[in-house]
C-alpha cells in the first residue's frame, strides 16, 4: 500500500523567518514593536512632565487669578479642575474694597452664577453667609465684614466633566468671569 505523502504546507501560528523555518519569533516585528514602545515611553514621560507642571490640573500652570480693574476684588481659582476632586475658589477683598465701597455698612455682598453649584459642585461657603438670595440665575450672598483684607472661600468638587465657567460680581461692579476645564 503506497504511503500518502502530505502535500499541504505545515500550518501553524508560529512566526517564520524567510517563510522557511518556524523559530517562534519575528525579529522584524519585534524591532518595530521596540521602536513603538520607545515612542510610547517618550509620550508617557512628556505626559508626566506636563502633569507635574499642572497642565492637567493640580499644579502651577492650573493656578489662576482674576482681578477687578479697581483692585477691590481678586479671585484665585484653578483653571483646570478634576472630576470629583476637592478644590478651593477664593474671593479676596483687599484694602481698596472699603475705598471703592465694596464693603459697606459692615457687610459685603457677592453674587455668583449658578454654574458654581451646578457644574463645579460648590459644597461649602466659608465663612457662612448672613443670608443667601436666589436672583439673576445665581445666588447673592451677604457676609458680615470687618476691616479688610477679607476672603470668602468656596469649596468645590466638580460633578461634570468638560468646559465650565464661573461668574462673580459685587452688585453694581464689574463682573468677573472665568473658564474652567474639568478633567475626567
Amino acid at each position: 500500500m503506497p504511503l500518502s505523502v502530505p502535500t499541504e504546507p505545515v500550518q501553524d501560528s508560529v512566526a517564520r523567518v524567510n517563510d522557511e523555518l518556524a523559530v517562534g519569533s519575528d525579529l522584524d516585528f519585534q524591532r518595530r514593536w521596540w521602536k513603538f514602545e520607545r515612542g510610547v515611553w517618550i509620550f508617557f514621560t512628556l505626559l508626566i512632565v506636563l502633569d507635574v507642571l499642572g497642565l492637567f490640573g493640580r499644579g502651577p500652570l492650573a493656578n489662576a487669578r482674576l482681578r477687578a480693574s479697581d483692585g477691590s476684588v481678586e479671585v484665585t481659582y484653578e483653571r483646570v479642575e478634576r472630576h470629583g476632586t476637592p478644590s478651593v475658589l477664593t474671593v479676596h477683598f483687599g484694602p481698596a474694597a472699603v475705598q471703592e465701597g465694596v464693603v459697606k455698612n459692615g457687610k459685603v455682598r457677592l453674587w455668583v452664577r449658578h454654574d458654581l453649584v451646578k457644574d463645579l459642585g460648590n459644597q461649602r461657603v466659608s465663612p457662612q453667609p448672613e443670608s443667601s438670595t436666589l436672583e439673576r440665575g445665581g445666588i447673592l450672598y451677604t457676609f458680615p465684614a470687618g476691616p479688610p483684607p477679607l476672603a470668602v472661600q468656596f469649596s468645590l468638587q466638580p460633578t461634570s466633566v468638560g468646559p465650565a465657567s464661573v461668574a462673580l460680581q459685587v452688585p453694581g461692579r464689574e463682573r468677573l468671569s472665568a473658564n474652567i476645564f474639568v478633567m475626567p
Partner: protein
Amino acid sequence: MYTVLHAIGGYLLLLLALRALRRRPGAQMTPFEFVLIFLMGGIIILTTMDDDHSVTNSTMGVITIGLMHRLVALIRQRFPRVAALIATAKHLCFSRTANGKRNR
C-alpha cells in the same frame, strides 16, 4: 503634580523596604509575602492618590510607577554598584574538579 511626587516617593520607599526585608516576595510567594505586598500597596495607595480619585490622577499614578520601574531598570544596567544596592546580585559559583576544569 502631587500624585507624581507621591508616587515617586512611594516607589522609592517600597523599593528600600523590600530590599531591607532581604527575602523578596515574588519568586516564591507565600501567603505571608502576599500579605506584605497587599498591605504595603494598600497603605501607599492612600497617600499616592490622596483625595483625588479622578481618572486623570490614577492614569498619571500608573504611568509614573511604570516610568520609575523603567528608570530603576536602566540604572541597574548602567551602574553595577547602584544595582547591588537595589537588588541582590546574581552569583555564579565555580568549583575546580580534579582534572582542573571548572564546574559551575
